[in-house]
């Protein structure tokens, strides 16, 4: 009995998981680049990324749990570690990632924010206030520890699908890479969105544009071989690609994901950044364009998950 088992909950989870991974990754990068003493553009990127990183993935995990047969059985996932099961690995990855992301988030709080946070703790739980430590100096270590895990989470969402032999649409390592770079670019996008609020984020955005362009170019050059390789692969894979080459997902894939979600923002960012770099003029950005671009990227990232989750389940060996 052929059925679509994984739906919007999973789509959203894959998207949010990737988003967090991206946020953490970029923030970690920034953390290495800035110097403790002088305030620099990187600080704000690192801080914003660190503060945002934990939440999407935690919501995603919530969705994941509610997608289970009985949500309260989720704990059984933690009674086993099965290295052959992507989902089992993923579960543990997510645990570590969540912990580090949270701690890292805390580490990036300013003293003022910390005091305010602990002030909120009700009297009954006063003892918690003892934990009001300053762990700013952990930031680099946390970034170092978290970086591989965030990459892992980013890749894992793709591996989860790619590891299924019986769904030709998924069953290629390219899916993992694709999801990773899509994740990273959505992370960037989220930060661009966050920083574009302020007038004077030019240096940050310059950096983020740069990163984002790299990610999206890579993403683009994974989509391409994915299609070419698929067409050169066995019949089952070719058939499965028909889903986006004339099948129900064609428009969604070409127009909305590839067109609006990837190429358009890529082009915009290049036209915004490249001239500046060539003639080292001062970088100016237009907030609406920056925000719009970011939104397109997020939209594209979501669509990518949507298309792969549904089309993948429809594909089958003949």
């Amino acid at each position, binding site marked *: 009995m052929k059925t679509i088992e994984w739906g919007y909950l999973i789509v959203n989870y894959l998207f949010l998981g990737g988003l967090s991974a991206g946020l953490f990754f970029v923030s970690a990068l920034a953390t290495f680049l800035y110097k403790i003493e002088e305030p620099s553009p990187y600080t704000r990127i690192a801080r914003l990324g660190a503060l945002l990183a934990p939440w999407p993935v935690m919501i995603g995990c919530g969705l994941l749990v509610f997608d289970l047969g009985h949500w309260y059985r*989720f704990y059984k996932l933690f009674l086993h570690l099965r290295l052959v*099961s992507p989902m089992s690995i993923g579960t543990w990855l997510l645990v570590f990632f969540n912990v580090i992301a949270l701690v890292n988030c805390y580490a990036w709080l300013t003293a003022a924010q910390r005091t305010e946070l602990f002030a909120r703790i009700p009297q009954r739980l006063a003892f918690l206030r003892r934990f009001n430590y300053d762990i700013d100096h952990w930031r680099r270590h946390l970034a170092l520890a978290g970086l591989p895990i965030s990459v892992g989470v980013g890749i894992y969402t793709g591996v989860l699908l790619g590891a299924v032999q019986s769904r030709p649409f998924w069953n290629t390592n390219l899916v993992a890479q694709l999801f990773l770079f899509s994740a990273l670019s959505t992370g960037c996008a989220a930060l661009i969105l966050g920083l574009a609020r302020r007038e004077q984020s030019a240096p940050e955005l310059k950096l983020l544009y740069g990163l984002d362009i790299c990610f999206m170019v890579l993403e683009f050059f994974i989509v391409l071989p994915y299609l070419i390789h698929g067409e050169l692969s*066995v019949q089952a894979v070719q058939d499965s690609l028909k889903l986006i080459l004339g099948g129900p997902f064609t428009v969604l894939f070409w127009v909305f994901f590839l067109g609006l979600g990837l190429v358009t923002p890529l082009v915009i960012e290049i036209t915004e950044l490249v001239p500046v770099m060539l003639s080292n003029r001062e970088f100016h950005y237009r907030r609406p364009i920056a925000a719009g671009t970011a939104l397109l990227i997020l939209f594209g990232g979501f669509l990518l998950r949507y298309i792969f989750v549904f089309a993948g389940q429809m594909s089958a060996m003949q």
Partner: protein
Amino acid sequence: MAAKNKRYALVIDSKKCINCKACVVACRAEYNVPLTYSRPWINEETRGVWPKLMAAFQPEQCHHCAHPACVRVCPTGASYQRPDGIVVVNESDCVGCRYCMIACPYDARFFREDKGVVEKCDFCVKRLARGQLPACVETCPSKVRVFGDLNDPKSKMADLISGREYRLKKPEAGTGPQIYYLM
């Protein structure tokens, strides 16, 4: 019960299948499966233009693969393979993530909303323990299904597999299916 060096499998002689559905109902009775699902099912195919017609019926169920994808992807080990090759689901460990259903090349698994777990053919392990044949095998009027131990050279199954041509379904999925369809 799962004795060593046993390897249970199923031979299906589709030519004899008359699509009578006895297997489907027998299984429903044995496991009280809700009407919306079925562990075994029969693929029907009719072709041709009057009066040149053909019809073929092919029973199918879990293939109890040698390298079951469902077992590999299961995050909790609820899906596991017994030493005798039978792939079973331990309901108490199943969290209902349905990853196994997506991984199964044969769509032989289904999700029971009422129980919140995934279910499938288990070759009637309870009946085997009692020395009975699986319900579908026992009840079949035209004896399409032959159940047995691949490692037993004296079994009827051995005769059929060594004596007749057979094919496996979707071997390219790499799961090593163990239902042998006689040609």
